């Protein structure tokens, strides 16, 4: 008897430990994921800069300083051979290995410095320029042995430093990973989410109101309820196929545009909003409705003046969660053509663009090692957005939700 009780108690302890272990393991996975991304991605927010002395009058650059004062400055810079001048100066200063030291980002930074101060062209100037991807990787960890050697040599002369990479947040996609930024993707995400929100929110809320308050209860409305519940559980890639078949091939809307992406994501988010809306509307007690009717309101006035305002916090919470899910979606947008290399941010909802999750996916395919830290840095930005949105939803829910 004693032995049996001992066994049962031991088994109890083991069971409890198993439960605790399960929860801890899940939390550990989350921590591992976040830490891994943070570890790999923090490097993407910094860039390696090296000092370079360029003797402009002696270089092959033929830029008229006066031309840089007007509105044509960008074009003048664009047509000048900054790459060549930088390469020449680097080779002269650090040896022939350093000809490719500075990449696209370096030339771009030089162009900006020249526009800011055209007098540099008349003398020899010392500038800090961002290095190219291979050198960046070599300095931050380990890469091509030639560049390891080169960076060590320059480091010994104290001419290397790490700085915050502001280009990452203001530049768009590029072929050289040291010059990429997520601005184009952020703008595309913003436009797409705007379109999604403007379409899904009114249609979802109005449908929820109709289905919950006005629709008769018969077999057809039961079928509608089942079908909307199923829509919420359909894999997102199916919506991508729908978008491809209907919006691109049947309606000939522009490929890869935020308009089409927004339409597809709106179709995906709308059932989530309808379900959240129905739950919120059902939770408003009947006494509110009866009281309003008793005071003489019409059915429509009861719904719009009394039920809807009270159900709005719940609806908003559901909407924000639905939007957060749409923000992280990649598969449906790949289907509607967002797989191309877009180098300029979109200026409207019909321009081809990319969104942040798709940009992450495209960069993850790249072979260049410099893209690893940039992809992880973009993931950090995406995760911050998700955290903010989910946090906002939880805050709204705690602050405004009423328990009847």
């Amino acid at each position, binding site marked *: 008897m004693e032995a049996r009780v001992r066994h049962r108690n031991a088994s109890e302890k083991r069971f409890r430990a198993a439960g605790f272990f399960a929860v801890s393991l899940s939390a550990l*996975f989350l921590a591992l994921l976040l830490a891994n991304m943070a570890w790999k991605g923090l490097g993407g927010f910094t860039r390696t800069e090296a000092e370079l002395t360029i003797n402009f009058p002696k270089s092959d650059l033929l830029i008229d300083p006066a031309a840089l004062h007007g509105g044509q400055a960008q074009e003048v810079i664009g047509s000048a051979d900054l790459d060549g001048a930088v390469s020449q100066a680097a080779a002269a200063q650090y040896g022939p290995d350093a000809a490719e030291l500075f990449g696209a980002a370096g030339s771009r930074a030089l162009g900006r410095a020249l526009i800011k101060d055209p007098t540099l062209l008349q003398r020899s100037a010392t500038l800090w320029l961002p290095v190219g991807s291979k050198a960046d990787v070599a300095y931050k960890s380990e890469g091509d042995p030639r560049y390891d050697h080169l960076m060590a040599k320059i480091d010994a002369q104290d001419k290397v430093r790490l700085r915050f990479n502001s280009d990452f947040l203001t530049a768009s996609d590029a072929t050289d990973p040291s010059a990429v930024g997520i601005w184009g993707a952020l703008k595309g995400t913003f436009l797409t989410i705007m379109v999604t929100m403007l379409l899904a929110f009114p249609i979802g809320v*109005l449908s929820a109101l109709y289905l919950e308050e006005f629709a008769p209860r018969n077999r057809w409305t039961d079928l509608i309820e089942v079908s909307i519940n199923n829509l919420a559980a359909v894999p997102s890639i*199916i919506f991508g196929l729908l978008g491809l078949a209907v919006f691109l091939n049947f309606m000939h809307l522009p490929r890869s545009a935020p308009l089409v992406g927004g339409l597809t994501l709106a179709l995906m988010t709308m059932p989530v909003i309808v379900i959240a809306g129905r739950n919120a509307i059902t939770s408003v007690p009947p006494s509110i409705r009866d009281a309003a009717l008793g005071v003489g309101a019409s059915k429509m006035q009861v719904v719009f003046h009394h039920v809807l305002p009270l159900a709005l916090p719940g609806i908003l919470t559901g909407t924000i969660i639905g939007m957060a899910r749409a923000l992280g979606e990649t598969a449906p947008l790949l289907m509607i053509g967002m797989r191309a290399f877009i180098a300029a941010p979109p200026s409207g909802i019909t321009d081809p663009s990319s969104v942040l999750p798709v940009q992450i996916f495209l960069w993850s395919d790249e072979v260049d090692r410099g893209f690893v830290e940039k992809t992880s840095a973009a993931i950090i930005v995406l995760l911050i957005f998700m955290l903010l949105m989910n946090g906002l939803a939880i805050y709204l829910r705690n602050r405004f939700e009423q328990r009847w």
Partner: protein
Amino acid sequence: MTHMIALVAVLGISAVAGWFGRSRATGLRGAGGRLHSLPNYHGFHVAIWAVVPALIFLAAWTPFQSQMVQRAVLASPEAQSLPAFEMQRESILSEAKEIAAGERDAGFNPESEGLVPRFREAGGRYATIGGALAIFLAIAGAALAFRRVKIDFRARTKVERWVMGLLIGASLIAILTTLGIVLSLLFESLRFFNLVSPTEFLFGTQWSPQTALRADQAGSSGAFGSVPLFWGTAFIGAIIAMIVAIPLGLMSAIFLTQYAPAKVRAWMKPLLEILAGVPTVVYGYFAALTVAPAVRDFGIAIGITSASSESALAAGLVMGIMIIPFVSSMADDSIAAVPQAMRDGSLALGATKSETIRKVLLPAALPGVVGGVLLAVSRAIGETMIVVMAAGLAANLTANPFASVTTVTAQIVQLLTGDQEFDSAKTLAAFALGLLLFIITLILNLIALTVVRRYREAYE
């Protein structure tokens, strides 16, 4: 006058007319009468009658306008010298149209330059006519409705009927989406089944989707047997992921509901919810970057030399982690729904907590837990990004978790993001796969729903 200007004008007229209607109604009330409807409703009534006919007209005018512009340009003298070849003609016309609209600076064909002024002229002419007509309709509608603003005019009833129409319209869109999905998938799949027989598709075990570009091309035999794909999907999503997710999810739910103090549960539960909120592309990248090499090294260490760096195990593990919150929250809800009386009765009889859970609570909560598991499986097999990034594209029919298999969703992405013309069997196969995936997830969801509904014990 462009469409934008006409639209803004119509909206402006409607707003002003509505304001006038409201003031008229307020004036009537002030003059000593009892209005049937509040002045706001009178205002809305006038505004609706101003805006709706004009908008319907504008919507119908747009296609009409492009047709008329096309005709006018084709009748002009420059168009007489256009080549007779259909495709070239079309491309010149569309180039000219784009240049006239300002979307393009110059075209490839020299003839399009000549047509641009014609397009601009005809386009401007018809846009002005359309805009003027729309504004006329708006004013006419507003005037007609304004005349009806009287004391006993039932404006509220009319406005509410319009709002009801709006609500029904919104619901129709929601309903039509399901229909749209099914129809579009069905339509394209039928075109696929014209090229490849359904039996080969459903039961064939060879998947190598090539279509011949030329009749005599070597290696052009396309095999469209989808069994390896569905096996890969089931292997990664229903087997490996569930082996990870079910024990962890269930035990987490049990711990959180039965053992954890309230304060721990308050922050533990949101932590698990965060797992569900992480975008799948992040999971995919994590799987490809960290988990897959680790799994391959592990596989080689225990002697499986053929371990691939794109293994089913890596994708399945990460997918299981992603699914834990789904299983956990459904199990949590069902266990919490079992009444305290059953739990207390069991404890009073002398059972330990774990015995209570295993023998009383879990059997009572089983329908909910099973429903949750089925929903989780349905989510896992529809998952795309993790398998695209971490599992491979090789259609293998193998049970070795260290080998590389592919899934239905990964193949859909692969087939549709290449450069293929839309009609080939290769791209249509993606739609057939999508249809099957939709049907399978639908069936799983329906089974989950019926299991929960039918077997759930009704307490009290």
